[in-house]
């Protein structure tokens, strides 16, 4: 059949190449070459020429990578500190994100409850996902900053001292960023998990009903186990996104130079702005390796799901 078609229309193959050409040319120029340059940069020493007019750099092997893993003047290991911050903030946000997502998905898909106004609630829950992260962070900064209404409220009630600043405090700043991430992403998680629940074959629930299974039984022994693959997918893609956290943390705490909320991408950004392409490149490569490992994990778990079917 396929061969037959080829014989019938041999001259059309060139159109295939023409149609896909733009994608590959643009990818080569604006993504692939920059990527190669990033990796190349990570093996060159830019630290001596930062701030000078010089532009000759020397090959330095793994020096940039070693530097990232060595103890700095502040007494911590820069890369691990930022990686740690990113992961901690992601975890604080991801736990309620998954819990709320799961609970809401179960409520929305329940055939027993049949709640009214679902469309309204879904619209409201998904809205924060589309709001400009920089604007949202700026709003929280204005509300929780030292002249913001929440600061006034907390001081008046004696919960914090007048000099206290939410934005430069380690715990509060992390919680605020995590809360924003949670608020922006739980709606998305809800929708994906709902699709997962709706994707479960109805006959499974029906036969459970006939067998006289209680609803809590159905939940723990049927729905949740069958939701595991999609939950893993949601969780890991959320983690990949979380590792690239930038906008919210930068706008909320970038100025305050809070060392407990500096994320990996903020580190790359800081090196880039200073023109230290060597260090920026090395951090990017490490971020790439971590993300690739996580992606392969997701890919494999999805494929395994396919095999079982």
């Amino acid at each position, binding site marked *: 059949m*396929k061969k037959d078609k*080829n014989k019938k229309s041999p001259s*059309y193959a060139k*159109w*295939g190449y*023409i*149609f*896909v050409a*733009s*994608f*590959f040319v*643009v990818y080569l120029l*604006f*993504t*692939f070459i*920059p*990527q190669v340059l*990033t990796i190349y*940069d990570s093996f060159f020493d830019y630290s001596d020429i930062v701030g000078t007019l010089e532009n000759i750099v020397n090959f330095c092997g793994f020096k940039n990578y070693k530097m990232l893993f060595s103890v700095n003047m502040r007494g911590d290991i820069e890369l691990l500190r930022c990686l740690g911050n990113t992961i901690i903030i992601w975890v604080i946000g991801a736990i309620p994100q998954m819990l*709320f997502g799961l609970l*809401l998905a179960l*409520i929305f898909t329940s055939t027993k*409850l049949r*709640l009214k106004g679902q*469309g309204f609630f*879904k*619209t409201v829950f998904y*809205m*924060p996902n*589309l709001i400009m*992260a920089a*604007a*949202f962070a*700026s*709003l929280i900064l*204005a509300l929780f*900053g030292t*002249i913001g209404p929440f*600061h*006034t*409220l907390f001081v008046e009630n004696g919960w914090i001292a007048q000099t206290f600043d939410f934005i430069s405090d380690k715990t509060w700043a992390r919680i605020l960023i995590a809360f924003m991430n949670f*608020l922006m992403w739980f*709606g998305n998680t809800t*929708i*994906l998990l709902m699709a*997962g629940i709706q994707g479960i074959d109805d006959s499974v629930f029906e036969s459970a009903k006939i067998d006289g299974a209680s609803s809590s039984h159905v939940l723990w022994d049927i729905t949740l186990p069958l939701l595991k693959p999609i939950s893993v997918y949601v969780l890991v893609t959320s983690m990949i996104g979380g590792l*690239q956290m930038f*906008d919210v943390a930068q*706008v909320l705490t970038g100025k305050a130079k809070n060392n407990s909320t500096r994320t990996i*991408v903020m580190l*790359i950004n800081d090196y*880039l702005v200073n023109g230290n392409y060597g260090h920026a*490149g090395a951090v*990017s*490569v490490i*971020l*790439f390796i971590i*993300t*690739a490992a996580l992606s392969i994990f997701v*890919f494999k778990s999805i494929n395994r799901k396919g095999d079982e079917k």
Partner: protein
Amino acid sequence: MNKAIGNKVITDFKKENRKAITKFVILKTLSYIFLCFVAVMCIFFFYLLLVNTTKDNNALQGGKLSLTLSEFFNQNLRNLFTKFKTDFDALKGFRASFVIAFGSALLTCYFSALTAYGIYAYDFKGKKLMEVFILAIMMIPTQLASVGFFQLASQYSLKNRWWLLILPSIAAPSIFFYMIQYLRATLPKDLIESSRIDGSNEFMTFNRIVIPIMKPAIAVQMIFSFVGSWNNLYMPSLLLSDTNKKTLPVMINALQHTSWGNIDLGCVYMAIFLSILPVIIVYLFLSKFIIKGVTAGSIKG
């Protein structure tokens, strides 16, 4: 005797039933309370934003938390476009954001559809490999390219050029993936064949027959890529340093660098409010359509 037992069974059954109904009502009420709680949580901060756009700067500096609207909305709006212009040039920001977001959304949709059609409709050597390649590069984080991209842009003095933020969106792996799945589900290959017989050339077939069929997919992706680009801070903040060229998120990020104590906070809130307003308006009209698009884009097969 027997009757007594029968009655007891019936009352037991009624009790059981009543219990189940009570349980159900409680569960339903709890669900509604939970939904309302989450909805309030979602809206609360944006409501506060709206409230604060109607307040005077004096009331905002160290002011108390209040939930009632005041009457300075027009004043703040006017000040934003006059006095506040040096800190936040809203008109220029809107222009930059709109050109970049609309330009990238248009290019990304057209060329992703074109690439997807190229791989779907034609048989040529290496097309399987190309598809696998595009799938694989989907997983590479954008930051890997950003260092080299920034370096090249600085070297060739291309910073502050909008097209540099628009053009790369032609190669968008995830949108390509969405488009090719849509094509596989909706476009019969016979249709291409018959349009050829009608004498249409290949580009005409794509523009006049395939694009109209793909309208729903293109619409969804237009919205998502427009919003993504409208909200994006990372690359624009690296590339756009000229105040005449900055997008809204870059301007908002720059606002935090001025001291908040000496700034008209009414205008700050107004700037934030106007930056998110276009997306919210679009969303309120198309929310059902957008929410449907979320699942379609994320779960394959």
